[in-house]
């Protein structure tokens, strides 16, 4: 059986981990198979969980989160017959599939929509833990917003520097209020559980928000502009479907293979105008075709559109 | 007996604290409008009895009658309701509250404080007028002196309209002038028809102010007599329980060179109270200097400074060399290194560690000694145990089991352990405080013999005791302390308990001569 390990936020974080869970559930529904799962409670459990699953014969083992990187590089060589898939991190081992997403591309589209929807000329971003990965989201978002409106102001805040930053809705909510006071009327949250506080406050205060990872439009219908989809579910689904024959190596999910994107559904149709939509689609086409190159923060740890 | 009901009648009161029987089947009658004294040695059970009357402790057995009616006193609330007020030996005041707040506490008239305080303020003025009990109602307790604090305690009782006032050793902490003032107030209260129970160790006070007096000994009530029909001598006999003074067989001392020379020793405690005021004294090798005095007149501080527990100012010479009274070397370790042994006044708080085994207590304080250590780091527990066994044998400690915890020994045997430890050290100077407090008669005798034997070996001994007979029996010279000063020195053969007792109360020989007439006039 395949197994999946969720990161600290838990599988019902309505965001990253939940997307992974959805992917696994879809696989189970469609194939009638079962999978083992565990929600991590602490950093120290990572290696233990991996080993326990490997020992128990689970294969492949999927894990959602960059933080598994160092544990997996320890464990993978010990179980050469087991296949592993890690999301959001590159682990260079023969039996590991590393899936990374071009979040900057999806965020770019979210930026375009935000700039179009903003009436104040200020949009904002709230990240979870301040790490290069999250800066990549912010940077893509800022580039998109500036592309749609060169005069726009983009504010960016990070919730914290530790794992707790993923699960601090109180702080998320206060950061949102602070950004509103600075004029922002669209806020994009890439912050796991903290984002729930951001979306809630945005809804309470009557501004628009942008969700992340999963489709979060339904959380506050008519108040969430869109969600930057990161198809973790697809990656998990695919890894489980491939099963023990999974091809290993480096795997990039981007706009072209629908690994990232923005969400449109009945919850936000009233918010998205036709003009906004066509501009977004046009940009998406250009990114896929290579006419627009979205700068990736992680490539050189710098961002042309935003200061951190 | 009169036909008026006694204000208080206790019948068959018993109370035990664990193995200690503090009160044994005590009965007592106190008539209204009188001052009734209670005397007894330390630990005789006086405070316990009064705490039972005030509902602070619960008696194991016995009945209480107030004005002839049987009254249950399960807690202090009930005692207050029955018209009883008590001034505890250790005051029960909230230090950082004002006088007014302390008076009102527990006797407020409703949930709001304002009206209660206003009423109390008026009442305090009335009480001050009536009894001369003046205090500043807005002063904080921690900022006023003990005499004032005691007034607050009395005011607390009067504010609660107490008809019966219990005072537990009220003068222990007072200056003579303050004490006199207190007694004037008590006389006033008596004149108003209040009943007063006065606990004290001081025979003079009993003779001066009480109408009747009860004597307690080892948890029992040994006698109740009319003050006018008794004498200090008789009361002392009743207190101690035997007619003859305990005499220790000893040869005359052969004092040699001075071992301890104290000049101008002053001590001021943490609260800034001047405890020792220029003490001068000398103890020579081969003699016992006895320090007599009422507890709290500076004897404890004297022992503590000499023993290195407290710091002081002045000059102290040991075998002719100055010792450090304040600096790095003024601690128990350095004193022991210089040949000072110290039997502390309170063996349970200081002399012993109650949860340590006897063998550990034997090394306590001397744990740096080479013979108890295998190396710089490690102690030699086997040697300690061996040593303890020998000491227990020599001092007849029962049971002779070094592994027993100190708390499992009786008071006398605990004291023997301390004595064995300190005496066997072969010190030049032995400081010894209250050597027989709470110790049974057999042990007292043994301890006294040890002290004399040590003297005969040519050691210098400084003995502090509140027991006059003990001082008389052991000392080669007697110094009397009062209010942090030495009142004078006497030779045991040339003085008696009466004279010493008066000196202990701060009186000179001349005043002492006039004393009996005074007592007769007032009594």
């Amino acid at each position, binding site marked *: 059986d395949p197994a999946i390990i969720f990161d600290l936020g838990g599988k019902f974080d309505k965001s990253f981990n939940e997307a992974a869970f959805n992917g696994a559930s879809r696989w189970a529904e469609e194939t009638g198979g079962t999978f083992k799962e565990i929600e991590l409670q602490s950093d120290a459990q990572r290696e233990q969980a991996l080993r326990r699953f490997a020992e128990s014969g689970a294969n492949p083992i999927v894990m959602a989160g960059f933080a598994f990187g160092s544990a997996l590089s320890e464990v993978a060589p010990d179980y050469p017959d087991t296949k592993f898939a890690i999301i959001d991190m590159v682990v260079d081992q023969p039996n590991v599939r590393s899936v990374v997403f071009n979040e900057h591309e999806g965020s770019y589209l979210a930026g375009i929509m935000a700039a179009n929807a903003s009436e104040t000329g200020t949009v904002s971003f709230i990240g979870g833990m301040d790490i290069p990965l999250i800066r990549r989201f912010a940077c893509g978002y800022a580039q998109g917003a500036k592309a749609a409106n060169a005069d726009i102001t983009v504010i960016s805040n990070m919730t914290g520097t530790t794992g*707790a930053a993923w699960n601090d*809705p*109180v702080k998320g*909510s206060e950061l949102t209020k*602070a950004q509103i006071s600075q004029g922002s009327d669209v806020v994009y949250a890439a912050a796991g559980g903290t984002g729930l*506080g951001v979306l809630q406050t945005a809804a309470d205060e009557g501004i628009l928000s942008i969700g992340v990872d999963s489709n979060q439009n339904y959380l506050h219908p008519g108040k969430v502009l869109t969600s930057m989809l990161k198809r973790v579910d697809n990656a998990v689904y695919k890894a489980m479907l491939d099963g023990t024959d999974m091809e290993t190596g480096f795997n990039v999910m981007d706009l072209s293979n629908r690994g990232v994107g923005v969400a449109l559904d009945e919850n936000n149709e009233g918010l998205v105008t036709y003009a906004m939509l066509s501009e977004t689609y046009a940009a998406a086409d250009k990114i896929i075709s290579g006419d627009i190159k979205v700068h990736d923060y992680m490539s050189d740890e710098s961002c042309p559109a935003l200061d951190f | 007996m009169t036909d008026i009901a006694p204000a208080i009648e206790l019948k068959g009161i018993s109370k035990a604290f664990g193995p200690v029987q503090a009160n044994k089947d005590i009965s007592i009658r106190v008539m209204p409008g009188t001052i009734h004294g209670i005397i007894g040695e330390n630990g005789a059970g006086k405070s316990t009895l009064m705490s039972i009357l005030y509902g602070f402790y619960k008696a194991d057995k016995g009945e209480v009658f107030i004005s002839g009616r049987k009254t249950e006193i399960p807690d202090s609330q009930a005692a207050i309701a029955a018209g009883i007020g*008590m001034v505890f030996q250790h005051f*029960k005041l*909230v230090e950082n509250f004002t006088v007014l707040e302390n008076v009102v*506490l527990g006797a407020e008239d409703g949930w709001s404080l304002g009206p209660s305080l206003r009423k109390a303020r008026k009442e305090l003025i009335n009480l001050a007028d009536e009894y001369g009990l003046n205090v500043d109602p807005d002063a904080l307790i921690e900022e006023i002196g003990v005499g004032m604090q005691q007034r607050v305690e009395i005011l607390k009782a009067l504010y609660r309209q107490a008809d019966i006032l219990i005072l537990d050793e009220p003068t222990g902490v007072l200056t003579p002038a303050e004490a006199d003032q207190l007694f004037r107030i008590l006389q006033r209260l008596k004149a108003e028809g209040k009943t007063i129970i006065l606990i004290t160790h001081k025979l003079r006070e009993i003779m001066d102010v009480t109408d009747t007096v009860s004597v307690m000994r080892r948890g029992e009530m040994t006698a109740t007599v009319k003050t006018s029909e008794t004498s200090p001598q008789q009361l002392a006999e009743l207190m101690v329980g035997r007619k003859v003074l305990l005499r220790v067989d000893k040869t005359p001392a052969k004092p040699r060179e001075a071992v301890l020379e104290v000049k101008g020793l002053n001590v001021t405690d943490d609260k800034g109270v001047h405890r020792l005021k220029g003490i001068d004294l000398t103890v020579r090798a081969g003699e016992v200097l006895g320090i007599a005095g009422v507890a709290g007149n500076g004897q404890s501080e004297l022992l503590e400074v000499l023993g290195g527990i407290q710091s002081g100012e002045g000059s102290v010479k040991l075998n002719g060399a100055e010792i450090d009274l304040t600096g790095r070397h003024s601690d128990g370790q350095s004193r022991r290194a210089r040949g000072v042994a110290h039997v502390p006044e309170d063996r349970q708080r200081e002399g012993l560690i109650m949860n340590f085994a006897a063998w550990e207590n034997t090394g306590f304080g001397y744990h740096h000694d080479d013979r108890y250590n295998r190396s710089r780091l490690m102690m030699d527990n086997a040697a300690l145990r061996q040593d303890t066994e020998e000491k227990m044998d020599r001092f007849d400690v029962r049971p002779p089991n070094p592994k027993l915890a100190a708390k499992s020994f009786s008071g006398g045997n605990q004291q023997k352990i301390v004595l064995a430890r300190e005496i066997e050290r072969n010190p030049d100077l032995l400081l010894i405080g209250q050597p027989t407090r709470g110790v049974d008669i057999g042990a007292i005798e043994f301890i006294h013999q040890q002290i004399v034997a040590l003297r005969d070996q040519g050691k210098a001994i400084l003995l502090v005791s509140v027991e006059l007979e003990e001082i008389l029996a052991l000392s080669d010279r007697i110094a009397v302390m009062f209010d942090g000063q030495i009142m004078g020195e006497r030779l045991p053969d040339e003085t008696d308990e009466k004279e010493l007792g008066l000196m202990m109360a701060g009186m000179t020989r001349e005043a002492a001569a006039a004393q009996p007439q005074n007592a007769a006039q007032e009594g």
Partner: protein
Amino acid sequence: MWDFLNLFSVPVLETSIRLATPLLLACLAGLFSERAGIFDIGLEGKMLIAAFFSAAISFNTGSVWLGLGAGILASVTLSIIHGLASITFRGNQLISGVAINFLAAGMTVLIAQSWFKQGGRTPQLEGAARFNPIEFPFAETFMPVPVAGPVYASLIGGHALLVYVAIAMVPLTWWVLFRTRFGLRLRAVGENPAAVDTAGVSVVGLRNAAVLICGVLCGLAGAYLATALQAGFVKDMTAGRGYIALAALIFAKWRPWYALAACLLFGYLQAIALRPDLLTAAFGFKVQIQLLDALPYILTVVILAGFVGKAIPPRAGGAPYVKER
């Protein structure tokens, strides 16, 4: 100059008030308990369990008032355990507090997982299941007035009910402690329980009352976190606020008005930590967030060490009252 004044702009101060509120409620809770001589390092745990139950019951019933009641009840239950351990059985108050914090940390997640299966959180609360901000009359109208407008609309007004309750608790606490019989006795029992006992008042009764009040106030603090500041419970959502409240209590030297000041200061430190950009602008260099996080604790240690105005705790604090062996 403007950069510096920005540190005290309305939004920053507004956030300070919101973040200071749970600290203030917990601090006053601790004040009642410690003034009565019962140390309480279990504020954190009581807040946490109240946060969970208020959110859970609010969600299940749709009524924030029922949620509030449940939160208070849960917190009071832990108070009773603390009282049982430290008053009835004369146990160690600190150890009991440590145990209570663990108990709350574990139980909330355990129950949340069992009830809602959302990884130790409750579902988001909506509408009447939350305390919503109270709009002051004409707030919108006044808003454009410079300074006074925003101050009226969002600094003074526009908070959840519990914020006003917390602030009202300050004079109320002061009044109860210093102007009522109960307060006099309560303060006395923390200073010298023997004095209270001999004055004919029950020490056990007073201390239990104080501990219960502490429970109620912690209940309010927890409910505020989950139903006003946030819309639901997440695991460990108190995030050390109980300890900051404890620090504030020492900082305030166990006095109500000082407690308000201390909590506002610590709330402000938390608020300003959310806006490092303002700090950088004001001071011209980057101020470490970690320093701001640690500042309440550092200040408290300085106060405790008596370098700046000594904090003297209630004298009988931490010790069980034993008059008889």
